């Protein structure tokens, strides 16, 4: 066993959760494709290899076995399918997520939710932004687009956190399974009447569109749609809220918040794209080697399960230079990997960006003196999914 293999064998889930970036940096330098026994995955860390692993489904596909995703989602979802079955599911989702559709309806919807949330905290002079602002805005915005407008934000946030616990359970922790299994059952029970109503009386919501584009009896359509619907509940509620939180944490930590407060409209897009790059909320995509294949100088055996780290690609010094680890509002805009590459590129990326843009812009417009709470600094956690666990801020009320 080489020195770097011995080091990788000692990596723990706790270390990854606390801060995976120094680990990824050493791998990019010394072992860019590296097996990590603690999670049973080959980590793919460099930009070029991440792009290759996600754009050659004839060599490396999404059918990871065993995958925590199948258990959490209650069946094969869009995340673990390739080829025609995946395209069929994309065809159900994409009509609701086309940029022009999103731009025509979502800004008003998101803005109303944002204003209500800001009204609730504006006079207080302090808040914990993740639980009081970004996560509620994210879940309520997506819930409304999905057709789940009658569900409250706390229920949607509970679902989101329950699904997340299972989706990242590569270490097979029974406590995590207990929570995510219960969440899955809860979602099935709560959504059953909603699906029935949207099938019998379709509206313009995403769930109604998905049911109409599916095939077979109502039961067959529900079986086809439900696992992917849970993926959307998880990822779609996570990406915008958590990336917006990381963006604000990056702005505050780097001393660049005042610049955005002075010109929110002009700088918000650069701010959120850098936030998505700096701490990618969905940092890991899982893949499987379909055939024996070479990646990053390593010959992967058939069936090797990969953790393709878009979060590491987004810190690759070869692409982003020596300041890759820093949040930099002035970094020239360039395509990042936060939404993936290839056939599994996030269908909802534009909707996510609209949400983030409005949430961050209006936050700085209404609370221009926003600053970190010096007594409670932001703490990030997670490697598959990463975001501030708390983001306590103050402002002049």
């Amino acid at each position, binding site marked *: 066993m080489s020195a770097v293999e011995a080091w990788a064998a000692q990596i723990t889930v706790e270390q990854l959760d606390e801060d995976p970036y120094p680990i990824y940096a050493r791998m990019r330098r010394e072992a860019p494709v590296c097996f990590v026994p603690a999670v049973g995955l080959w980590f793919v860390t460099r930009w070029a290899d991440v792009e290759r692993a996600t754009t050659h489904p004839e060599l490396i596909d999404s059918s990871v076995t065993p995958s925590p995703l199948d258990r959490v989602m209650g069946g094969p979802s869009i995340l673990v399918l390739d080829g025609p079955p995946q395209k069929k599911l994309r065809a159900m989702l994409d009509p609701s997520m086309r*940029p022009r559709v999103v731009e025509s309806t979502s800004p008003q919807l998101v803005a109303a939710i944002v204003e209500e949330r800001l009204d609730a905290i504006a006079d207080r002079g302090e808040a914990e932004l993740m639980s009081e602002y970004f996560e509620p805005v994210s879940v309520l915005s997506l819930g409304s687009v999905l057709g789940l407008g009658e569900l409250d934000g706390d229920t949607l946030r509970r679902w989101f956190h329950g699904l997340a616990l299972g989706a990242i359970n590569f270490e097979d922790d029974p406590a995590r399974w207990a929570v995510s299994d219960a969440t899955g059952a809860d979602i099935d029970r709560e959504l059953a009447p909603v699906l029935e109503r949207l099938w019998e009386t379709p509206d313009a919501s995403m769930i109604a569109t998905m049911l109409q584009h599916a095939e077979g009896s109502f039961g067959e359509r529900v079986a086809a749609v439900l696992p992917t619907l849970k993926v959307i509940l998880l990822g779609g509620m996570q990406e915008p809220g958590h990336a917006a939180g990381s963006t604000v944490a990056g702005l505050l930590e780097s001393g660049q918040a005042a610049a955005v407060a002075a010109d929110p409209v002009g700088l918000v897009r650069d701010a959120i794209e850098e936030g998505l790059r700096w701490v990618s909320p969905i940092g890991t995509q899982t893949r499987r080697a379909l055939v024996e294949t070479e990646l990053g100088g390593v010959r992967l055996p058939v069936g090797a399960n990969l953790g393709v780290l878009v979060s590491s690609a987004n810190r690759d010094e070869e692409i982003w230079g020596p300041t890759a680890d820093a949040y930099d509002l002035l970094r020239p*805009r*360039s*395509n990042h990997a936060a939404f993936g590459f290839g056939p599994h590129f996030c269908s909802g990326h534009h909707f996510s960006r609209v949400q983030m843009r409005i949430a961050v812009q209006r936050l700085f417009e209404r609370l221009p003196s926003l600053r970190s709470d010096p007594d409670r600094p932001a703490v990030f956690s997670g490697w598959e999914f990463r975001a501030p666990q708390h983001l306590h801020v103050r402002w002049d009320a």
Partner: protein
Amino acid sequence: MVDLGSVDLGPADLADGDLRGATAAGLVLVVARTGERYVTFETWCTHEECPLGDGWLEGEAIRCACHGSLFSLVDGAVLEGPALDPIAVAAASVTPAGRVVADISTLHA
């Protein structure tokens, strides 16, 4: 002055941030104005060949209406996926007679 190889892409009547279609030398093109700059590029998105002419400008970039890729109109680079490959962009100029002209030989590459 009109360069050798330049083609006429119609009147210079676009407002800032507007775009329109044009055809020249067998290519289906988009002509766009950002600030005082005119540029032209082939309409086909490098992702799934949706027409970029159906999209819209965001500052100095073009958004594909199909899947949301964003391309720089300064150098054609992908600013937001899902596209992986850049587009070719040719700078255009305005003649004293108010016509948009461009050397589109680089778009044939």
